[in-house]
């Protein structure tokens, strides 16, 4: 029982960050029809940005995080303008390969810039765990969980309540109609990609201090983000948010009670099962396929 509770807590904490990774990716896919293989690189970028801000500019940890998000969003906007906009009319796999190229280039640029040695980021939080009954958790992870949840809720409110969010949702539903109604599709695409990149950078900025920083850290993040997106349904915001938690808990239980070697298989198996049984994602309402 004690073990189960700890597993569930671990899964929940991990899952919230998976959600944060997933929603950025799912938005970019849903609105722009771009499979962003470089998503994990923005995660890496966020983590290194925090490191640079802390070590280089010696700002506070709480200032470093928004800085990292800004850097991620700015670079995301730049990538959209330079790489994606000219390829608007190309096929989805051409665009995907460009993103693969970006992924390779960014990762190796990071390797060149920072070297292969893992770096760790210090935080103002105590390393002594908080003990709640039979389970324990570090203060840093609680902070990460709370901030991730806040970001997810914030992103949701942005989409649901603001004029920009309405324009984004309109674009998602029907690009042509949205354009007719006066939405600037180009602007929405730039904002969306910057938004997705910013969320990935936020995840990196939060998780970098929990784990370690190394140039290939984004690969695992990408993998998890993709799993979450499939689980929740491509382009489904709420699905991604829930999918992250489901994946986190499922992985944790799989590793805890089945076999730790197959930990990452849990995600894949869920994906295959979801695709075969409910290809529109676990949390989609039944829709008529026209």
């Amino acid at each position, binding site marked *: 029982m*004690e*073990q189960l509770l*700890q*597993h569930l807590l*671990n899964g929940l904490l*991990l899952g919230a960050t998976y959600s944060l990774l997933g929603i950025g990716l799912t938005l970019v896919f849903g609105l722009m029809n771009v499979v962003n293989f470089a998503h994990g690189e923005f995660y890496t970028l966020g983590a290194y940005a925090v490191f640079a801000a802390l070590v280089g500019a010696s700002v506070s940890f709480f200032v470093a995080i928004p800085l990292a998000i800004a850097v991620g969003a700015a670079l995301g906007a730049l990538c959209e303008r330079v790489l994606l906009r000219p390829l608007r009319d190309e096929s989805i796999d051409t665009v995907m390969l460009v993103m693969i190229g970006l992924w390779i280039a960014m990762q*190796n640029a990071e*390797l060149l810039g920072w*070297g*292969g*040695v*893992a770096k*760790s980021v210090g935080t103002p939080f105590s*390393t002594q*765990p908080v*003990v709640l009954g039979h389970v*324990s*958790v*570090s203060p840093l*992870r609680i902070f990460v969980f709370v901030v991730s949840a806040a970001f997810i809720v914030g992103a949701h409110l942005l989409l649901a309540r603001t004029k920009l969010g309405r324009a984004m949702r309109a674009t998602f539903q029907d690009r042509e109609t949205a354009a007719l109604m006066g939405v600037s599709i180009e602007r929405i695409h730039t904002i969306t990609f910057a938004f997705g990149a910013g969320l990935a950078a936020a995840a990196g900025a939060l*998780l970098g201090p929990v*784990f*370690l920083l*190394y140039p*290939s*850290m984004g*690969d*695992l993040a990408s993998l998890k983000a993709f799993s979450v997106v499939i689980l929740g349904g491509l382009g489904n915001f709420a699905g991604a948010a829930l999918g992250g938690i489901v994946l986190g808990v499922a*992985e*944790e*239980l*799989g*590793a*805890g*009670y089945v076999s*730790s*070697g197959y*930990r*990452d298989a849990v995600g894949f198996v869920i994906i295959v099962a979801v695709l075969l049984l409910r290809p529109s994602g676990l949390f989609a309402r039944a829709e008529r396929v026209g």
Partner: protein
Amino acid sequence: MNRVITSMALLVLGLVTALPALAQTGEPIKIGVIQPLSGPVAASGNYVRMGTEIARDWINARGGVLGRQVQLLIEDNKSDPKEAATAAEKLIVRDKVPVIMGAWGSSMTLAAMPKLEEYGVPMVVETSSAASITKRGNPWVFRISPPSEMEALGLEKYLKDFGIKQADFLAVNTDWGRGAATAFGDLLKRSGAAVGATEFMDQAATDMNAQITKIKAGTSDTLFLTTGVEQITLVLKQAQEQRLARKVITTGGSSSPSQLIKQAGPAAEGTYHILFFTPWFPEAMPDGKLAKTFVDEWNKRGHPFEGLTEGFRGHDGIMTAADAIKLAGKPDPKAVRDALWKVNIMGVNGPIRFEKDGPAGKESGQSKPSIFIVQIRDGKIALPTFAAKK
């Protein structure tokens, strides 16, 4: 578009013109080096590379080998076995090296080995620990690192001091991690201790909480940890979060306790580490003077201190290869292979001397390295109290 082509052409031109600068005057003796310089284990590979460069400079400062300068041809295997085989082939065929040192990971070494047999070129294996490397009947392989079994035997004399009743294993899911879990598990069972949970983690995994929770549910007193220093850091931090009360022993010799203190902080307190080099007290090494000089040189070059526990292997590997060339009297692969059997030098780790291992008639060489244990106490590296006594 034209501008792109022009700039590409200029870039290419610049690189081509830079190449001859690498070539040295006279006919240098080439030694091939294959290391993971990029990819997930790039940090370790680069430390080993730094070690090889120190060895090269020392040899050349002393007048080289056979009166000729030594030149290292360093190839990246990108942490990928296929690349290791390609690199070996390139070094042998294009660069005509008489001997190679490499290739860090066991799967990379294993992938390169058929090329050694195919072309008849010896390789000094400096890090790989899979038993199968010297058991497969490849007479071109000479290993100076210990296979996991040998490492386990090195621990045997301390087993009583540790007082292990039951131990769990958490290892990286590679040949190395699995091999170490088996070897140390066998040792424990032989000496009457029990083996609890054996858990694995993916090479790239960062969250090991599930494994730790599972281990915590058991009743063991000791945790054997086999993986790279990055994952060890994460496991120790996450174990602290979950208040896992275990004696932790890391195996494999690449745990770099200095880096652990730096990155895991208090989470690393009290942990034990099996090492093949203790740069904190070089004087305790079999050749204290050599070890001291090596540490000083490393620091002088501004290399990170935590890289020393990997870097020394590069030094020892190149020294071994160079000595074999000297003994052979010529940089010829077959002569160097025969000479490797006669090598008897003092490395940073200790004496290097090859004994036969593997199927009769096609034996590989295996040296018997020295093995040390250190403990992190009060944020510093110390010899364990029981070891200090001995």
